[in-house]
């Protein structure tokens, strides 16, 4: 793939993201129907979800809490007064043919997040990305096209309202993003923050996090904006990156060859790795927004707001900085450790239990992560407790076990948990059988008994027993005597 900055140094891309985050409340935004995913069609519906005549929406307080917490985490200003509006358009997945959303008075506006942009072979940099607003709205249902996997060619369409009325937070970035990589990092940081807050699982495959990209190119930062194109249908961060990069190049090429970039919505085709036109956006649609008379004004009183603020966890960016400053970890390690809240929490507990941060980081991001990846698990409910890992690290640092032994016992500890000390005792692994451990011990020993060493070399062979005795005394008899004999002989004779 062509890299814009390399081949076309004058061009600049302007990218903004609209991110829909499903808020993970148990019930829907305006009714008590369940939000459970993946069940039989139309099993999580009720008269409100279906928009039956005479039904009325009542705001789920938990949704407001989640939206406000998300807003605070994105450094947005939470409005004292806000309201819901009706966004009107006809589509069969929208039961009332209007969506309850927020138009001109969203719950929060004007924030930012810090994104760390890391790319192989390039210098990692930190960038502040502005956020225009966050608003609450209800999700639509889903159309299932029968007789074909898509609308074209299908004989009829079925409607599943299970998703209808699930709470969404729509987060609109400012057009501050310049590359596909930045866009992907931004989206992934949004997801990370939502997961830290526990307000969404951010699962892109299940659609609980959906990103639409708005993208245009211009000849340098002072040039006027080009025509904006919307891209949909990316279901991974790498798809976001690739779709942006593809689209940037497509638009540049179009301008450079004298073609027109049309204002339109394009779909990312993951199979073909390209974007293709879906529908024209010229003559923008009129949603006839007006305040929803069924829902009163939304007021978040200051004491409630402050209570919610006090419940916010330390967020990923703050953790990244702290890990680097306080623990002296590399930017890379800090980023890996803070990627998942459960991992960061685990790491901090291990450090709190007395382990040195660097070793803790190595074990967690290395062998343990690899183990969990294979098992498709994460650090939530990980049986090997932080104190136990700290104990294992201590054993290594004390020279009681070697790193090699530690790696050997790790799978079982990861599986069942338990005290590493106890395990090595039970398995007799405390017996030091590692040449790399024993050899320096013997060197040290020989260093402390220079007379005896000379005597031995002068023929006093019986002194071998003396050295073994000293070694055993020092290690509580844990050194494998056969191995010790061998190494001693080598060193004394060699």
């Amino acid at each position, binding site marked *: 793939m062509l890299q814009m900055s390399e081949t076309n140094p004058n061009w600049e891309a302007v990218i903004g993201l609209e991110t829909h985050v499903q808020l993970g409340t148990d019930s829907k935004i305006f009714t008590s129907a369940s939000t459970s995913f993946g069940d039989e069609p139309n099993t999580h519906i009720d*008269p409100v979800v*279906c*928009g*039956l*005549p*005479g*039904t*009325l*929406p*009542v*705001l789920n307080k938990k949704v407001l809490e989640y939206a406000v917490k998300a807003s605070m985490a994105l450094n947005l200003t939470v409005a004292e007064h806000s309201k819901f509006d*009706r966004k*009107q358009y*006809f589509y*069969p997945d929208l*039961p*009332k*043919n*209007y969506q309850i959303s927020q138009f001109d008075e969203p719950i929060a506006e004007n924030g930012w997040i810090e994104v760390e942009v890391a790319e192989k072979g390039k210098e990692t940099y930190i960038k502040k990305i502005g956020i225009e607003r966050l608003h609450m709205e209800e999700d639509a249902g889903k159309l299932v096209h029968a007789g074909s996997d898509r609308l074209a060619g299908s004989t009829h369409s079925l*409607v599943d309202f299970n998703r209808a009325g699930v709470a969404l937070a729509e987060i609109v970035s400012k057009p501050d993003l310049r590359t596909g990589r930045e866009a992907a990092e931004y989206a992934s940081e949004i997801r990370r923050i939502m997961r830290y807050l526990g307000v969404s699982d951010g699962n892109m495959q299940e659609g609980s996090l959906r990103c639409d990209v708005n993208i245009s190119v211009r000849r340098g930062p002072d040039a006027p904006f080009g025509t904006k194109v919307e891209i949909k249908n990316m279901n991974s961060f790498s798809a976001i990156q690739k779709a942006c990069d593809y689209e940037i190049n497509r638009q540049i090429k179009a301008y450079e060859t004298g073609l027109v970039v049309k204002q339109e919505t394009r779909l990312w085709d993951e199979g073909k790795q390209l974007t293709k036109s879906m529908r024209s956006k010229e003559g923008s649609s*009129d949603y*006839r*927004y*007006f305040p929803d*008379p*069924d*829902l*009163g004004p939304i007021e978040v009183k200051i004491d409630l707001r402050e209570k919610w603020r006090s419940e916010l966890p330390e967020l990923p960016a703050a953790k990244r900085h702290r890990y680097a400053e306080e623990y002296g970890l590399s930017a890379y390690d800090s980023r890996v450790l803070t990627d998942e809240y459960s991992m960061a929490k685990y790491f901090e507990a291990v450090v709190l239990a007395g382990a040195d941060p660097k070793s803790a980081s190595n074990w967690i991001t290395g062998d343990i992560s690899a183990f969990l990846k294979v098992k498709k698990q994460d650090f939530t409910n990980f049986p090997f407790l932080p104190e136990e890992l700290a104990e294992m690290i201590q054993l290594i640092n004390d020279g009681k076990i070697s790193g090699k032994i530690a790696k050997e016992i790790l799978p079982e500890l990861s599986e069942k948990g338990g005290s590493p000390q106890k395990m090595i005792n039970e398995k007799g692994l405390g017996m030091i059988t590692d040449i790399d451990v024993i050899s320096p011990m013997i060197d040290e020993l020989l260093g402390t008994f220079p007379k005896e060493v000379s005597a031995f070399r002068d023929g006093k062979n019986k002194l071998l027993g003396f050295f073994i005795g000293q070694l055993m005394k020092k290690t509580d008899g844990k050194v494998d005597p056969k191995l010790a004999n061998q190494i001693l002989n080598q060193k004394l004779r060699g």
Partner: protein
Amino acid sequence: MSISEWRKKLVLGEVSSLELVEEYLLRIKSVDQKLNSFLFVNEEKAKARAKQIDEERSAGKSLPPLAGIPIAIKDNLCTKGIKTTCSSNMLSNFVSPYESTVTQRLWDAGALLVGKTNLDEFAMGSSTETSAFGTTLNPWDIERVPGGSSGGSAAAVAAGLCVASLGSDTGGSIRQPASFCGVVGLKPTYGRVSRWGLVAFASSLDQVGPFARSVADAADVLQVIAGNDTKDSTCLDLPVPNFAGSFEKPIRGLKVGLIKECFDQEGLDQEVKKSVLRAAHQLEELGVELIEVSCPRFNDGIATYYVIAPSEASANLARYDGVKYGSRSEEEDNLVAMTSSTRAMSFGQEVQRRILIGTYALSAGYFDAYYKKAQQVRTLICRDFENAFKKVDVLLTPTSPTTAFKAGAHENNPLSMYLSDLLTIPANLAGLPAISLPCGFDHSELPIGLQLIGNVLEEERLLQVAHQYEQISNVMKNRPKGDFIPG
């Protein structure tokens, strides 16, 4: 007979609930073929429930306040398992899977559903003529309309087909038909009564209320249906007073305001004006002080209303698209055409007109000039009322500029029909409680309605004044005879 009279007879065992409901059912059978006030008569279930109540009564159980009282329900209130049509072909087969809060409260209070009554389609109209299932006739003169949109509920009470009924009032849809049919009709404060299960017309204006033969009966029904409902965010979480609590307290010294702008109306019938002013003077004899007040924006209510109500309606009625329920046009082969065709086929002219007005008013480029402006005027109208209530306790106006008009009178001119709600609309825009009660008859022996408007949440005072006026005026005791008016 009033609720309290029937209640007394039921308690004393002079009549059983079954006999009572059978009497009403019989009367429905004999006269309603002509009047067409009912779309559905709940004969079997009403009788079965009456028997049950009789058994409970004879077993000595203490019964709720409306036990055995036959009540009719406007067919835009959802009743579980019984069709709710809104007098529209769009919902001709719609059976709600849930019960509206107001009707549930009535059934919990022991009332019997006698039937569902006719209305203007989706409550849009002032004559019941826009119903897809035929016009309801006025029991006082069957060449005339009963008013609307709750014409069926008003006519049913007037003709003695039920003891009381429920209607809904968006711009006068309870009070104007009450006035045309010579019964009492009450629109409570917005938020006093739950809208859960009321099929929405204009959500910021709609309010459910009772029709009855007396102010006391209206208060009785309101007592049952009022109060907070967690299913309706606009319902007020406030204690419900005893609405009849002040009936016997003297009204001497209360100030009653006559809204100048109402009596200066060009279209105001002189007989109506005279009758209403006479009512005001009768109140004066009870010791109230009459004060002329000005609400300069009062007459802007109608223009304001005909932007706000259709705007909200255009969104509220968008769900009727032929996809989920209602009739679907089968001729079309694509979605947009199917939806358009279904709506063109299943909505009547007046409903389509209002959807178009509302869609237009909310469109980009027109929103500020229409919807936003209308909301600003609405605020001014509210302010007029606030100022007026600094000086007076209750406001007094005619309910409608005229008595019942002939069927078809406004057929070719919807705007002239709209004027019929000129005097009732402002109370909806301001969310105020208002009542219409009979104050006399014109030369054609058609009833004239008096409207009293109370301050927000002051139903108790409103009903106190209305009740005392009713007691001294004796309007209904000296009523003319009518073919369909019970003796």
